[in-house]
């Protein structure tokens, strides 16, 4: 569905991605793991069109999309829920969701999609007229995901959905991600919380300083000794080592 071939990307003179190749199959949940500064967010920004890769190509459903602006990428069905749940804080919940559907041409179906969103996230319905900045952290994360869903993505990219959230909330959000995937949305999940990510992913890549250092089926990686030691934080379950 989406392939990155030998992608190199830089901020100014600093080369962050040093030639990565990644393949995402339709219907999968693919996890991208790695510590801070590994290049995970840069990769998403490159796919989204915020950054132009300096080398390599990106193909989505057989079409080259690298170098295209974000509004084109979004309308093709690749939508990102950005890191740090960056919702629009002074807009209402409903207005945030409407912005999510900004590129949609089939505006008549919006109320149906809102129902679908509220089915996943009932709490957002209760708060639809509330100013988004007043939501709790977990609710803001839900809104960020819901906003991306309003664009009817074929590929949903989630940047660190677990960041700064209580374990109970993380669990809830990951269950919803799984449910969204079962409805037919392919998911690219960028996470530092490797344990949670590998629990729902089919396939995973591990990034380190701008390179893919390991890839494989999620189950295989979960049992890999090196991955266990570095990313799954040894013995204590639930902990998350960077």
């Amino acid at each position, binding site marked *: 569905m989406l392939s990155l071939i030998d992608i190199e990307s830089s901020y100014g003179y600093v080369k962050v991605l040093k030639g990565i190749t990644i393949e995402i199959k339709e219907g999968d949940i693919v996890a991208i793991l790695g510590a801070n500064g590994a290049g995970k967010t840069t990769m998403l920004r490159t796919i*989204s069109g*915020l950054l132009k890769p300096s080398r390599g190509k990106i193909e989505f459903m057989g079409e080259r999309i690298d170098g295209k*602006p*974000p*509004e084109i990428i*979004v*309308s093709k069905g690749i*939508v*990102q829920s*950005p890191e740090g749940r*960056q919702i*629009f*804080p*002074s*807009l209402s919940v409903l*207005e945030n969701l*409407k*912005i*999510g559907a*900004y*590129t949609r041409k089939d505006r008549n179906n919006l109320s149906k999609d809102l129902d679908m969103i509220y089915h996943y996230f009932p709490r957002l319905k209760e708060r639809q007229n509330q100013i988004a900045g007043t939501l709790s952290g977990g609710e803001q994360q839900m809104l960020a995901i819901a*906003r991306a869903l309003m*664009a009817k993505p074929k590929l949903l990219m989630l940047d660190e959905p677990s960041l700064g959230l209580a374990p109970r909330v993380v669990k809830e959000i990951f269950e919803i991600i799984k449910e969204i995937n079962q409805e037919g949305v392919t998911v690219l999940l960028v996470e530092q919380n490797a344990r949670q990510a590998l629990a729902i992913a089919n396939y995973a890549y591990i990034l380190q300083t701008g390179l893919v250092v390991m890839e494989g089926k999620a189950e295989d990686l979960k049992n890999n000794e090196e991955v266990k030691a570095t990313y799954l934080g040894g013995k204590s379950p639930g902990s998350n080592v960077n």
Partner: protein
Amino acid sequence: MLLQQLISGFATGGLYALAALGLVLIYKTSDVVNFAQGEMAMFSTFIAYTAMTSYGMSYWEAFILALLFASALGFIVERFFIRPIQNAPVLSLLIVTLGLMMIVNGIAGWVFGFETHSFPAIVGGELKIFDAVISKSNLLTLVITVFIMGILFYMLKYTLAGIAIRATSENPTIARLMGIAVNHVYSITWVVSSILGAIAGMFIAPTTFLDVNMMSSVLLKAFTAAVLGGFTTFVGPVVGGLILGVLENIASGYISAQLSSTFAFALIVIMLWIKPTGLVGQKVGKKV
């Protein structure tokens, strides 16, 4: 006397508010302080004047023509002067709009001359309400201003384009990720802002008279209105403009008309001292 002062205060205040809204609209979406706003408005007002005096157009024909001109001017300035350097430091952008201010002023002098002209009011005549004598043009100006603000606020609040403008003003990067072509948003805000300025210019010209420097004090008042009400909200400049208009009218009526600019400056200083975010402003984090 007081009612009279209030109405004319609200009328001029409304015009300050229009010009200030134009400033805030651009500032909030793209972080640019447009010092050329006033000169652009003056140029559009001259277009209306020339259309009336040299081409025999009626007031409203000239009015519409000036608004069309203002839209084009706003679009061109953003597209060719601001967008190429939109990632430059704030100070550079400031210098560019200051430069534009002088360029537009110079071109206007060259094209239209430096003489002062009288500019027609929308309507003539006066109304008598109780003891107060109220000019019809003040009243109509006030009505039109309120109407235009109503449309603007309705669009910002309820239309998708309006929500997109607010989203862009909060976080342009995330707005892009949602598929908003923020460059189009910038174009729209410059066009709207230029139109607001032109309306303010044409409504204020009957009192200030029309010449190339007519808008310099209006721009100062617009800044005062924006600072007084708060540069970070759309309601702020309206509140600030109305308060300024009324205070200024009362001050010039009871104290001295010569001091009205001094008065505006003093208000900016005092406001920044007491509440830097303005009356209805709120603190915002710096945009990333």
